[in-house]
Structure formats: C-alpha cells, structure tokens
C-alpha cells in the first residue's frame, strides 16, 4: 500500500550522500536514499520513491522479463485473433 513512484537518479548530491536528485517525467526532487545503503546507486538507476525516500532500486532485468511475458501473451493473443479472423473469412 502507499503511493510509490519510479524515478530516475539524475545526480547523487556530493555534500549529502544520503540524498539523490531524482527525475520523474521531467520533475525533479531530492530523495533520501539512506534506506538503500549498500546498493551501488548511480545516475541512470531507477528507484521507487515513497514519501521522499527511496524504498528500493528497480531491477531492470526483472522488469524486462516481466514485460517479455506480457508481450508474449499479447503476441499469442494477436495470433489467435488473427487466426480467428482468418477462419471467419474462410467461413464467410
């Protein structure tokens, strides 16, 4: 529960290593990354933001494999629909 939004790290503040400037769709805010202690964070990394804190680092590989799964279902569905349509044309 509780609103969490993905944002991209733009900069780790040099004077405050527990803060990162994060970009959400062109909107920027300093986010506390103290809860991700021990994770290697760098500009370009994505994090999940909740009430001004980063709760986790987004795992791009996991994201990709999940999307691949969704794509595959989508593709299968389109194939089926196409097949269905063809069969209807054949019938028609």
């Amino acid at each position: 529960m509780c609103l969490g939004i993905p944002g991209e790290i733009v900069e780790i503040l040099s004077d405050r290593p527990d803060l990162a400037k994060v970009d959400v769709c062109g909107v920027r805010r300093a986010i506390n990354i103290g809860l991700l202690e021990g994770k290697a964070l760098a500009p370009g990394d994505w994090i999940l933001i909740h009430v001004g804190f980063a709760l986790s680092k987004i795992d791009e590989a996991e994201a990709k494999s999940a999307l691949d799964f969704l794509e595959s279902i989508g593709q299968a569905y389109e194939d089926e629909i196409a097949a269905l349509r063809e069969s209807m044309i054949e019938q028609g």
Partner: protein
Amino acid sequence: MRFVDEYRDADKARALAARIATLCEPGRAYKFMEVCGGHTHTIYKHGLEDHLPAAVTLVHGPGCPVCVIPMGRVDDAIHIAEEPGVIMTSFGDMMRVPGGRGSFLDAMARGADIRMVYSPLDALKIARENPGKRVVFMAIGFETTAPSTAMTVLRAAAEGIANFSVFCNHVTIIPAIKAILDSPDLRLDGFIGPGHVSTVIGCRPYGFIAESYGKPLVVAGFEPLDVLQSVYQNLVQLSEGRAAVENQYARVVPWDGNPKALAVINEVMELRPHFEWRGLGFISDSALRVRERYAAFDAERIFDIPGGRVADPKACQCGEVLKGVLKPWECKVFGTACTPETPIGTCMVSSEGACAAYYNFGRFSRDRVKEATRT
C-alpha cells in the same frame, strides 16, 4: 513514464483478460482479495474490472492505512494539535478523516495549526524553522512508511532537534491478513499481495498463507497490468492445484525485502502489545510505537493524550468492508448518509478506501457505463 506506461497498455490487458477467461472453470466463482488500498485505487481508477470475467470478483482488504485508524486516535491527534504552540504535520490523506470531534480540517477551522507535508523530513524541516513551536508528525502507514518515520526520528536525534516528535500510528500488515483469514464469514480463493509493503518486509512473511491456509498470494505492482497479471497468476496456481507465494512485482520487490529499512524500524520502534484497528477491533502485535530510548521524540509520552475510545457510528459497516465481507454498496449508508463529503466511515475518506474508490470511480450501473462509453 518508464515503469508506468508499459503497465497501462490496453492491448496487453485484453490479451491477459482473454487468458484469465480461459483459466476460469465454467460454473466456478473466484474471489481474490487485494489486501492493499493502493490496489483498490488502481482497480477503480483504471476500470480494471472491465477486463475481468463475471466469474472473478475482487474483494477489497484492510490495507488502507488511513481507513484503519480508529476515531479515538484522530481525536488524540487533534488534542495534540490544539495544545498551545503546536504545529501538527500530516500527509494530505489524513486531512478529512473524521474523529469524534471532526477532522483535521475542522480543527484548523477552529484554530489549530495543521500543515500538510509530502515527507516526514518536511515536518522535521518545519521543526528546524520554528524553534519556538512544538512540531508533531502524525505518522501513519504500514511498513512501507514506517522506515521513513524512523529515519526522520534518527535524523532529529542526530541533529538534536528537540522540538520534533512523532505521533506514531504505524501498523503492520501480517496480523491484519491473519485476522482476515481467521474471520469466519469470508471465503477467498487467493490474495493479491501488497507490493510496496513487500519492498520492506519481502515475500517470506506471507509463506504461512500458502502453507497453513492453502491460499495463493501474488505480490503485485500498482499498475493495472500488474494487478491483472496477479489475478492471472492466482488463477494459474488454482488451475494447477498449487498454493504458493509468488512475486509478480520482482522489478521492485526483492524476495527478502529491505533489511536496512527493517533495521531502522527496529531501532526506533517496537511492537505494541495491542492496537485497535478501525472496524477490526484490537489486534495483538499489530502496530508500532516509539521505543523508550527515543522517548524524547514520542508525542505519546510528551503530550498528555486523552486516549479515549470512540465507538464507531452505529451505521458504520467499515469493519465488514475492510474484511471484504461486504461490498461497499452493501453498507446501508453507502452513498446516501455516507459520502466523500460527509463520510461516516474512514473507508469513504481516503482515496485508497474501498468505499471512496467505489463511490468516486465506480458508483454506477456498470452496464449503463459500458453502453455509454462504447466507441
């Protein structure tokens, strides 16, 4: 928006919906509970149910941290806010939640200084900027939010900010799920597990649900495709006769959660023996309080708090709604006496509350809506 837009795609939704439909055994009805109010919000905001077959029902759970705050705690918070020299700070979600003596907004109208913040760190900043005032942060939320509160207390302690304290109302999710599972009047087929809580606690704590209760639980993300996919994964498990904890939201949720976040919670807070949940009653070991060693930052110790219990209004059926026993519209006052302008129960206030989500986004004949929006 990366990691967002991909998961709002209508074509993929239709494909997934087709799979879901094929997974449903003819004649069987399925009930899945989304524990988390964030999911409830997603479901209604995106009209997700339009993709579900009639056989699948989503049941809204107790995972709205605003909804479960009992009225007495709201009154306590207002009591603190009305002490001289206090600035109460709160997330926007709390502003309209009614206690026995009205809401924060009403207290503001009577003269209390209550300010909305985006982060507990903003409350700390207000404390820093107002040394002559006592700044209290109204801390609410599950394990998602508790680490932020704890980090803020640690920061206040490190900086020696003496005029800052926390009114701690953090609750924990597992005892609530257990209460649901043990409630006699509810039959569920599986769970859509709370994604953001799980970033902190990980997926292991749900193990007992699969093991002891034999129900699947799929930890899910908050975009509508995430939720739809978790329905799909639940159905797959059921069709395969399995019951396991799965992580649909692996891009964000590590299986083991966030150990640092758990550590800071544990440093600053401890379990309360009992805590009252609105609608659910007292649940043991279900909430957090500030540890003795941070007593200086604990509003409950600093202020003399009435701590009274306020009985829920007679008409209020929030408990049944929170447990998923009643659908919002089945509450007798839903939409007539209880509306977002004049909420009787908290479920009608928070945008994560099942009643509010249903009222704002879903309240209307689904058939007529579908008819009207057909393109």
